[in-house]
C-alpha cells in the first residue's frame, strides 16, 4: 500500500443544531404494515432484518395495517389513551409545581407515553418492570394512586420513600415497579436476575427492563444482554431511543450506521425496531416479546424509536443544543394524537369525548396534587423526621447508627 494519509478522529454530530433544521432521514423509516411478523419460536439470528426495519401498524390515516396489527378491543385502546393522557397531564402539572418550587426536580415523558403505557397493557400485573425515570406511563397504566406519587415528588411526610430519593425515582413494589436507581443502566442486569429467579423457581412471572439510547453505552446494558442470552432469561429489554441523552445525540451512544436493536442480534437475542409512537405497534411488539418470555423462548430486545419532546429534566434547556422545533417535525408524530385519530377513524372515540376526558383528568390530577400538598412539601419542611434517615440502612440498626442518631438529636 502507498503511505497512508493521516488518521483523523470521527466525532458524530446530530443533523441539526440550534438555528438549523434537523434532517430526520437518518431514522430510516419503513411504512406501516411493511415489517413481517415472525413466529414466537423464531431463532434470534433470524430477526436481524427486523432489527434494522421499523415495525409500524398505524398508517397516516390512522388505520391499523399489516401483520403486527393487534387484536385489541376498543375498550383496551380507550384505557390506553386515558393512561397516556393522564401521564401527559400529570407531567405538565408537575412541571408547573416544580416551577412553583413545590417540587425540587422533575422529569417529564412528553412524547414517549406510548412506550410505557402500551407495554404495560401487554404484561401481566405480576410481571416486574425495571424502569428508568421516564416510564411514569407504567404507573398510570397500572393505576397507582396519584396522591402516593405526588407525595414522593413533594418529599413530604407521606412520601412512601421517606424523602430519601429525588423526585420521580419512585419504587412501587405492589404495582410491579422496581425502585428506580439514579445510576443509569444498573437495572438491566437486575431485571435479568429477577427473571432468572422466576425461572429457577419455576414460576410464570417475567421481567421487563427499560433503558435510554444514551445509557446503552453503559456496560450494564451489555452485561444484561449476555446473561439474558446465556440463561435464556424471561426478560424484555426496552431501549427507548428518544434521540437524545441530555445534550448528546444518539450517535454518541453508537447509533450511527446501526441500530440499538442490532445490539441484541449480536448477543443472540431476538430483536425488533419499532415505532414507539404507534400505540398499536408498541402493544403488538410488547405482546410478542412477553409471549416469548413466558413460553421459555427467551429474551427479546425492542428498540422504541421516539423523540424526547421536552427538556431532559427541569435542570435542562434543550434549546442550547438542538433546534427548538424538532418535535413538531419529528416524522413519527405524537403517540396520543395518533391513537386518538385511530379510535376516531374507527368510530370508537370523538373530539368531544377527548375534551371531556382531558377535563376529567386535569381535575383528577389537580385534586390529587391538592390532597398531596395537604401532607406538606419539602419547601415547607413537612418531611419525614430526621431520625428516619438512619432507618433501612440495615435491616436492624447497628450500634454505630444508634450512636449517630443520638448525636444528631443532641445537636438539633
Amino acid at each position, binding site marked *: 500500500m502507498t503511505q497512508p494519509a493521516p488518521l483523523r478522529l470521527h466525532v458524530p454530530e446530530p443533523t441539526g443544531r440550534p438555528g438549523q433544521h434537523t434532517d430526520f432521514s437518518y431514522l430510516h423509516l419503513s411504512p406501516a404494515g411493511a415489517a413481517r411478523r415472525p413466529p414466537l419460536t423464531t431463532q434470534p439470528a433470524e430477526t436481524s432484518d427486523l432489527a434494522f426495519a421499523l415495525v409500524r401498524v398505524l398508517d397516516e390515516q390512522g388505520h391499523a395495517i399489516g401483520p403486527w396489527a393487534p387484536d385489541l378491543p376498543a375498550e383496551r385502546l380507550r384505557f390506553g389513551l386515558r393512561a397516556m393522557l393522564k401521564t401527559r397531564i400529570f407531567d405538565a402539572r408537575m412541571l408547573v409545581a416544580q416551577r412553583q418550587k413545590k417540587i425540587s426536580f422533575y422529569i417529564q415523558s412528553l412524547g414517549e407515553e406510548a412506550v410505557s403505557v402500551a407495554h404495560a397493557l401487554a404484561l401481566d400485573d405480576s410481571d416486574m418492570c425495571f424502569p428508568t425515570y421516564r416510564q411514569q406511563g407504567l404507573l398510570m397504566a397500572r393505576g397507582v394512586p396519584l396522591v402516593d406519587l405526588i407525595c414522593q415528588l413533594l418529599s413530604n411526610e407521606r412520601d*412512601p*420513600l421517606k424523602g430519601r430519593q429525588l423526585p420521580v425515582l419512585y419504587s412501587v413494589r405492589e404495582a410491579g415497579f422496581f425502585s428506580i436507581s439514579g*445510576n443509569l443502566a444498573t437495572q438491566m442486569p*437486575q431485571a435479568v*436476575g429477577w427473571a432468572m429467579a422466576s425461572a*429457577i423457581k419455576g414460576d410464570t412471572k417475567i421481567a421487563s427492563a427499560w433503558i435510554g439510547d444514551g445509557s446503552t453505552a453503559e456496560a*450494564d446494558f451489555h452485561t444484561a444482554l449476555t*446473561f439474558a442470552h446465556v440463561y435464556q432469561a424471561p426478560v424484555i429489554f426496552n431501549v427507548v431511543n428518544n434521540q437524545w441523552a441530555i445534550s448528546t445525540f444518539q450517535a454518541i451512544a453508537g447509533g450511527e450506521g446501526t441500530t440499538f436493536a442490532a445490539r441484541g442480534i449480536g448477543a443472540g437475542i431476538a430483536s425488533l425496531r419499532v415505532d414507539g409512537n404507534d400505540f398499536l405497534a408498541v402493544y403488538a411488539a410488547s405482546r410478542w416479546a412477553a409471549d416469548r418470555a413466558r413460553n421459555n423462548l427467551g429474551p427479546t430486545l425492542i428498540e422504541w424509536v421516539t423523540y424526547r419532546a421536552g427538556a431532559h429534566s427541569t435542570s435542562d434547556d434543550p434549546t442550547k443544543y438542538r433546534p427548538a422545533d424538532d418535535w413538531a417535525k419529528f416524522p413519527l408524530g405524537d403517540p396520543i394524537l395518533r391513537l386518538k385519530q385511530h379510535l376516531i377513524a374507527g368510530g370508537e372515540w370523538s373530539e368531544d369525548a377527548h375534551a371531556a376526558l382531558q377535563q376529567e383528568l386535569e381535575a383528577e390530577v389537580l385534586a390529587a396534587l391538592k390532597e398531596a400538598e395537604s401532607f406538606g412539601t419539602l419547601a415547607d419542611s413537612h418531611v419525614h423526621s430526621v431520625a428516619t434517615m438512619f432507618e433501612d*440502612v440495615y435491616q436492624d440498626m447497628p450500634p454505630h447508627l444508634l450512636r449517630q442518631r443520638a448525636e444528631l438529636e443532641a445537636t438539633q
Partner: protein
Amino acid sequence: MSATTPMTMIQALRSAMDVMLERDPNVVIFGEDVGYFGGVFRCTEGLQKKYGNSRVFDAPISESGIVGVAVGMGAYGLRPVAEIQFADYVYPATDQIVSEAARLRYRSAGEFIAPLTIRMPCGGGIYGGQTHSQSPEAFFTHVCGLRTVMPSNPYDAKGLLIAAIENDDPVIFLEPKRLYNGPFDGHHDRPVTAWSKHPLGAVPEGYYTVPLESASVYRPGNALTVLTYGTMVHVAAAAAQESGIDAEIIDLRSLWPLDLDTIVNSVQKTGRCVVVHEATRTSGFGAELVSLVQEHCFYHLEAPIVRVAGWDTPYPHAQEWAYFPGPARVAAGFRKALEN
C-alpha cells in the same frame, strides 16, 4: 450442635453452602467456574451434582453481571451466594455493590432488599502477584448498608457464612486464601501445618451460626491489644509467641458493623494497641480502627496506636515476603507499642 469433623477452611465453606442449599430452597450459588468444576479453589465442588444446575451454576466472566443479577434475584426473594474468583477482580462490580446492593433497601424504604452474600478469596502469600493478592476490605467498610466479614478459621468460616447467607443485608464475605488449607502464621519457609491440628479446625457437620458483629478474643493477654482479622490473626499469634509479648489478640471476624465493646474493653485493660492488616496501609480499615480506639479509649492509651500493614504499593510478585507483614514486622509493631 451436631458432631464435629476436622475440616479445612475450604471444606467448612463448602459445608456451609451445602447446609444452606439443603435448608433453604431460595439459596442459589453461582460464579465463574463454580458449577461443574467446583471453583478454582474447589469451594463448591460437588454442589452442582447434588443440587442441580439451576441451584449451582457457572456464570459468564463478568463480576458486574454476577452481582447485578444477584441483586435482581434477591429482590425476587432468592438468597444468592455469588463467588468472585479473586477479590482483586471485584472492581468491575463496584457500582452494583455500592450503588445498588448496599442502597436498595434504603432507597426503596424497605420495599426491596438485596440479601446477597458475595464470597471472594483475598490476601497474599501464594505468589499471586498484584492481581491475586489484594485485600480490599477498606472499600466495603466505607459503604453504608454493607456488611463485611472475614473469618480466620474453619469453625468461624462455616458459622459466619451461614449467618451471612441468612442475613437480609448484603454481606461481603472475604476468605483469606492463604488460610484455605492451614493456619498460616507468616513463616512461609516452614512446612505447612494442617487445620486438623488446630482446635478451630473441628467443625460441626450440620447447621450452626457464628453471629455477625461479634469479635472473638483469639489469645487473651495483658501487655497490649491487637486488633486484626483473617490471616493476620495467626501471624499476630506467632509474633506474640516469638516475642514473648503477652498480646491480647482480637479477631474481629465482622469488620463492619463491628463489635466495639470487645475492642474497647480490651484496650481499656491493656492501654496499648496495635492494629494489623495485610491491605495497604493508607486509608485501610486499620485507620478506622485507630480512630475508634482513640475516640473511645483516649484516656486509657499509654502510647500511640501502632499500625502494621501492607506497604502502600501494589503487591509485588518477587518481593512478596518483604511486602507481607510477617511475624517479625508485627513483633516490631508490638515493641513499638510498648515503648514509653
